[in-house]
Every structure is written in C-alpha cells, then in structure tokens.
C-alpha cells in the first residue's frame, strides 16, 4: 500500500509501512517544514532571514543543521553552500535529505525492513531486495532517461537539476547557465547523495571529477546538449 502526502512544497510517496508509521513520518517532515521553510514567514529560518531572530538565539536543531551545511560547504570547496548570494541563510539544500534520513531511522526503529521513501524525486530505500528506480528525462519529463537497479548499501538516490526549481543552486555569481542540466547521485546515504548532486550541478565538470575522486558515489550527469557522463557504478546499475 502506497501513501502520499504533501510537505515542504512537494509530495512524499511512502510504501511498505502501516498508517501509524506514515503519520510519524508526516510529523518529522512537518517539523522540518515549520522550522526551515523560507516560504513560511513564521518559520524559525524565515525569522532569521528577516532579522527578527538572531542566529545565537535560534534552536539547537537549526544551528546543528546550519553547522552541517557549513561542513558540507567546506568539504565541497563551496560548491554546496547554505549562504545565498543575497545574504539569506537557506538550508533547503540539506534539511529535506536530513528529514528523509530521520524518517528512515524512525521507520527502521519500528521494525520495518522493506520500504521506499520518495520525497519530491529523491529516494531512500531499505530492504534486502533490489529495487528499480527510473530517472526522469530532463528534456521531457513525461519520459524516463534510464532505470537504475538499487541494491543496499546503495540506498540513497538524489537528483538535482537546473531545470525545475533551481534546487537552491548558486553558481558563484556566474550568469552562465549550469553545465549540467541534471545530476543524479547514488550513495550509501541520502544526505551525501543530495548534497553532492547539488554540488556537481554548481561545480560542473571539475566539481564532478573532484567529487567522484573523493567520495564513494555513483554519478550520472546530463549536460545542456543532452550528452551524458556516468561513473562505472552507474553502468553496472543500469537495468537490463
């Protein structure tokens, strides 16, 4: 039985758990949404952006998320950043994946083993069996680009694009469009996958090489002309 609900401006699809667990997952996302969503003027992060609340007076949760985002910023040489060019702190690039991770831990703690969580196109799976996930075609969203077979420990798949929502990607003040219109990262955890997908869109080819050299992740990137590059792990994961 698959259940869907709206949160954080997108839709969550969750399969493999009971209704009580779905409600628990809903609460995790609702909490992140109310704390971090900039489109909610009353959220803690929106109040920091407006100057109403000082960072030093913010919650431990918010400061922890900001510290995590800064750590990722440092690890990716600034390709991923929570600091928007206009000075606003935007944690959307990380809090959704962190909420997914928290939800996954909660589901696992409830004893559920085989489930899939899809939040706006980012996917976290659990289970012993292989799951086949389609990746959307960035040039025609009614079509699939490919299908990837996911097997633990590769449980997280995140895709960033310069096409749909911008995905909170700032190209260092450059007015040039991003080199890659869509980047999919498969990793052992969803936060790493999500952050690095964003960082590769922002960092282009050199960012891609830097990241695949330093992290154990699989990457599929589509450039503006539709040409693709893939790491060996993606080739192996392509569905037969």
């Amino acid at each position, binding site marked *: 039985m698959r259940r*869907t609900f709206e949160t954080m401006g*997108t839709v969550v699809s969750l399969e493999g758990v009971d209704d009580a667990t779905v409600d628990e997952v809903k609460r995790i996302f609702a909490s992140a949404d109310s704390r971090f969503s900039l489109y909610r003027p009353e959220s803690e992060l929106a109040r920091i952006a407006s100057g109403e609340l000082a960072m030093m007076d913010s919650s431990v949760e918010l400061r922890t998320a900001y510290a995590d985002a800064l750590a990722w910023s440092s690890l990716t040489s600034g390709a991923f950043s929570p600091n928007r060019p206009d000075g606003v702190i935007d944690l959307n690039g990380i809090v959704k994946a962190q909420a997914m991770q928290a939800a996954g831990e909660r589901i696992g703690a409830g004893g559920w083993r085989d489930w899939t969580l899809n939040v706006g*196109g980012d996917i976290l799976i659990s289970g012993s069996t292989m799951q086949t*996930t389609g990746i959307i075609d960035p040039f025609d969203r009614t079509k699939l680009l490919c299908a990837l*077979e996911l097997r633990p420990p590769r449980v997280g798949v995140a895709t960033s694009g310069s*096409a749909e*929502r911008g995905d909170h990607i700032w190209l260092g003040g450059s007015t040039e469009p991003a080199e890659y219109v869509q980047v999919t990262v498969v990793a052992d955890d969803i936060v790493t996958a999500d952050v690095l997908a964003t960082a590769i869109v922002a960092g282009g080819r050199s960012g891609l090489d830097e990241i*695949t*050299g330093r992290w*154990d992740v699989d990457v599929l990137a589509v450039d503006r002309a539709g040409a693709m590059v893939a790491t060996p792990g993606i080739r192996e994961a392509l569905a037969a």
Partner: protein
Amino acid sequence: MRTRAVLSSIFASLGVLVIGWQAGNAAVQSATTATSTTTPTTTTTGGSSGTSPSGTSTGSNTTTSTGTTTAAPVAPTTGATDGTYAGSTVNTRFGPVQVQVTISSGAITDVTALQLTNTDGRSVQISNYASPILAQEVLSSQSAQVSNVGGATYTSQAYLQSLQSALDQAGF
C-alpha cells in the same frame, strides 16, 4: 584544467605500461619459440640447469621434463601472465601517479589508477572517473519496470502531472 593534466599524465603512464606489456608479449612469444626448438636439449639435460639456455632453465627442473610448461614460468618477468600488475610510479607536478593493469588470457581487462596525491595532499581515486555514456546504452534500461521515479525536486503542483504520481495512483 588540472583534471585534464592529471588525466593526460595517467594516460601517458598507461601508454608506457601498454608498450611494456606489448614488449613483454613479444618476449614471451620469442621465449616460446626458443622453448620449442630447445626442448630436446632440455629433456636430455634433465636437472642440470646450468647448461640450459636462458629462459628454459625453469622447465628443465620440472619433474615431467617435457618442456611444454616452460613458457609460463618465464612470463612473470615480462608481465603478460594473468594477474594484476602495478606500474612504476610516475612523478607529475600533481604528485605521484601509479597505474595498475589486470591481464586475463593475455588481454588487458582492467586499468585503474592506484593512487594519486593532488596538490592539497589528498588521496584521489581516479577509478571512479565519469566517462561519456551513449544514449543508446542508457535507453536500453528504459524498458525495465520501475517502482519509483527520481528527478530534480518537483513542486506539489508539478507532482500532479508527474510519472511518480501515475505510479502512486497505480498503487505500485
């Protein structure tokens, strides 16, 4: 820019290895030829390896004394035997680069850059390099039945028109 330079240095060292491998292959062939012609000598001399021509001495010590297995023991020095071989470390301005080649049935089956230290002193794994993949290769996977669709974050509104929405409604 830096990446390109690193890669070209890797390919340069790979080139050296391939040339070495080809040279090794030629050496094995000549050794094999030598073996076939000198086999009678080898078998008659038996365990007396001192008089054997170079390259067949190992065979002369085998208990079968047929001389047919002489080529294989010679090979390790040339690198053409099945196995994994690490090339010599080449110093580049980005740090030392070493390439490893796996040979199976006389053919190179895998090449990996063992290690490379960039200017920041970090270890870099080049084997995970993203290379061009043909649309054709990717498209063939499309016929697989999928249970979820990944993509750049869609809005609640875009979800309604999405493939994921269709899958969710189908109750996959």
